[in-house]
């Protein structure tokens, strides 16, 4: 099992520009420190229609009302500002930014548990005698004795057989080489919605699911202590 940077085709070059936009790293960092409710705020704003900050404050009274503490409220305001920035970039751009933001968030959270230099983006995983997958994994952790591969999705709707099969195959190929590889899908959506999506797909027992409520598990000692699909 070895890792390789993804091919730099035209799509990858454009997407790399989005990944490198400072707003992506900024929101990724904010969301890494955020509560589940604040992450839900970001999700709502980046897929909403309203551009008025006051409306969003009304929609999320627990984050902006009198009950919110000073630090929490300041973070909520920062998340709201950054999310409105992304939402204002137009439908196609916001879609690409949202994906990049989930990847950035995943990388930041993983960097709490493993040396950040071992967290990589857009990597392919190669196995001896196995034809390489075309699509790279969004985020990988590459350690001498084990590895982790993550695909990141904005919503539960992004879960499909193809994505799960690629992760499952990576897990199986690693086992065939007697290597340790954790394969997981990170979804910036409620676990309930993910379960609805998964219920109509065949099971992929080698793939873990990390939903909105369990994102912090990525940064804790037991990686992706979440649901097996």
């Amino acid at each position, binding site marked *: 099992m070895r890792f390789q940077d993804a091919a730099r085709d035209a799509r990858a070059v454009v997407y790399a520009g989005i990944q490198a936009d400072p707003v992506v790293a900024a929101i990724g960092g904010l969301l890494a420190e955020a509560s589940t409710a604040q992450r839900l705020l970001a999700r709502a704003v980046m897929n*909403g229609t309203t551009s008025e900050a006051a409306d969003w404050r009304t929609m999320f009274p627990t984050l902006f009302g009198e009950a919110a503490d000073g630090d929490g409220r300041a973070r909520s305001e920062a998340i709201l500002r950054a999310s409105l920035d992304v939402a204002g970039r137009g439908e196609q751009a916001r879609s690409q930014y949202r994906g990049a933001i989930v990847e950035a968030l995943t990388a930041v959270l993983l960097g709490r548990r493993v040396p950040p230099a071992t967290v990589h983006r857009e990597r392919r995983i190669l196995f001896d005698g196995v034809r390489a997958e075309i699509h790279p994994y969004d985020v990988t952790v590459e350690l001498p004795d084990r590895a982790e591969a993550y695909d990141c999705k904005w919503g539960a709707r992004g879960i499909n057989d193809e994505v799960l099969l690629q992760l499952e195959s990576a897990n199986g190929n690693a086992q065939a080489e007697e290597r340790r590889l954790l394969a997981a899908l990170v979804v910036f959506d409620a676990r309930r919605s993910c379960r609805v999506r998964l219920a109509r797909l065949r099971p992929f027992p080698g793939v873990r699911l990390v939903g909105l409520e369990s994102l912090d598990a990525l940064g804790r000692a037991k990686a992706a202590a979440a649901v097996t699909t």
Partner: protein
Amino acid sequence: MPTVRVAINRAQAALATLTARGEAIDDEWQYVTDLEAAWRARLEEVAAARGGESLAPEAESAVDRLTAEAASIEDPHRAIDWMSTLPQAVLLALGEPA
């Protein structure tokens, strides 16, 4: 005085509107149907347990604005995404976990 039941009814009506918009994506009809059923059931659980409770003014305003936001969404893809977001946000305003 509005109650939690009233808020849930409004959220469920908004969810139905999003569902109708999301059903325009033929390939996602099953997912849209399943998603509505799952979130409707979760909202109903809350109404069954707390339906008679008075709604705090800020929660009432939140539900008002959330349902208005849902109603403003016309794009079917965005509507499917909001089918998950709306109930979570309503539950949060009511002090409930997703």
